């Protein structure tokens, strides 16, 4: 298990309170996501859609590299930063 720091955008405050950083231990990216959702289950609906995919306009970076979290088996062997952001996109087609 390796220390992972997950950073969340301020917009998610209604789901998790003022917490912006979550410290947890994980062995893979998927493990880290599972532990994040175990600790803050209200995040699930905001980060992932009904099919379990990362929402279209949510960005995820693992150590600065963008990922859609398709392959969550990537091992974590060194202290790692996972960052979620809202994309500079979105909006409604009106």
């Amino acid at each position, binding site marked *: 298990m390796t220390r992972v720091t997950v950073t969340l955008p301020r*917009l998610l405050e209604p*789901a998790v309170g003022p917490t912006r950083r979550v410290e947890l231990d994980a062995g893979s990216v998927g493990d880290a996501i599972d532990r994040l959702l175990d600790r803050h289950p*209200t995040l699930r*609906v905001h980060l992932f859609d*009904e099919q379990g995919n990362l*929402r279209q306009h*949510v960005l995820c970076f693992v150590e600065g590299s963008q990922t859609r979290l398709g392959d969550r088996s990537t091992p974590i062997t060194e202290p790692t930063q996972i960052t979620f952001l*809202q994309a500079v996109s979105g909006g*409604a087609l009106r």
Partner: protein
Amino acid sequence: MQRIAIGTEKGAYFLDRNGGWQVDGPRFPGWKVSAFGQAPDGTYLAGLGSNWFGASVHRSEDFDKWEQVESGPSYPSDLNRKLTQIWTFHTAGDRIFAGVDQAGLFISEDQGITWDLLVGLNEHESRPTWEPGFGGLCAHHILTDGDRIWVGISAVGVFRSDDGGKTFGRFDKGVTPAGTPDEEGVGSDGWCVHGLVADPKHPDSIWRQDHMGVYRTIDGAETWERIETGLPSGFGFTMRRHHASGTLFVVPIEAGENRVPVGGHLAAYRSTDGGDSWNVAGTGWPRAEQFTGVLRNAMDVDADGGVAFGTTGGQVYVSTDVGDHWEQLPFSFPRILTVAVI
């Protein structure tokens, strides 16, 4: 009327009438706050949505501390549908209904903590023909009378269940269809209901603000008749009723393609004869033109005759006497999606 809850495109604001009006907010800054409700035990509910993140239900006992529920409305993964917005809450007895986009109904029987899909509407045989309109594919108004449930779905029409939600039929006879897919983005069999309100003492009496006009039924939606005498336009979104007096309110808008008051003359219209005739409601309306709209859930009426509505331009108008006198509050908010008078 002691408090008005304002849900906007960017956060919620709570207006307290304490001598003058005072603002508390924003709460949920950056979030679309699209619905307010109240659970059977009095707990307040808020429905949140976002252009980035998923929609969620939040509960509060005091409008101050809010907590998101973990098991809010959500479609099962195998339906391949997305829940993008909570449009309305409707409390009946010990149950709360939530109407959502993409159109569907959910029910909570534990004060809004957990929610279950109401399959009868969501799997209706006509569903493959449902197409979203300009405002999306949303279930935005719910009425109930015992085992009977009426649901208004934008760009689709009015549905009624007589068996507690197990099955639903379609009830738009007498209403002009909203158009063809080439015109309004509405499905070929689409009736574009915008607002619904019923008389709780005579639940078969229902009034309907539709894309194509203002209508009334006295037989539970079996047949509808047009009732627009005195209105400058049949188009509009919101429709509310003060039940003690039977007074109906609408805010006419010019047309679907130009969603502002006719001539810029913003005013609520009311009917005191069940919709037979309409007149400008009371006095206090701005003399200067107001080119702004009022959305379908952006008006509310309380039992004491308090009336409030918010505009897409962010202004709030209030009356404390069933619409005899109106006051524009001195605040501006983001685009107002929903209003609740408490």
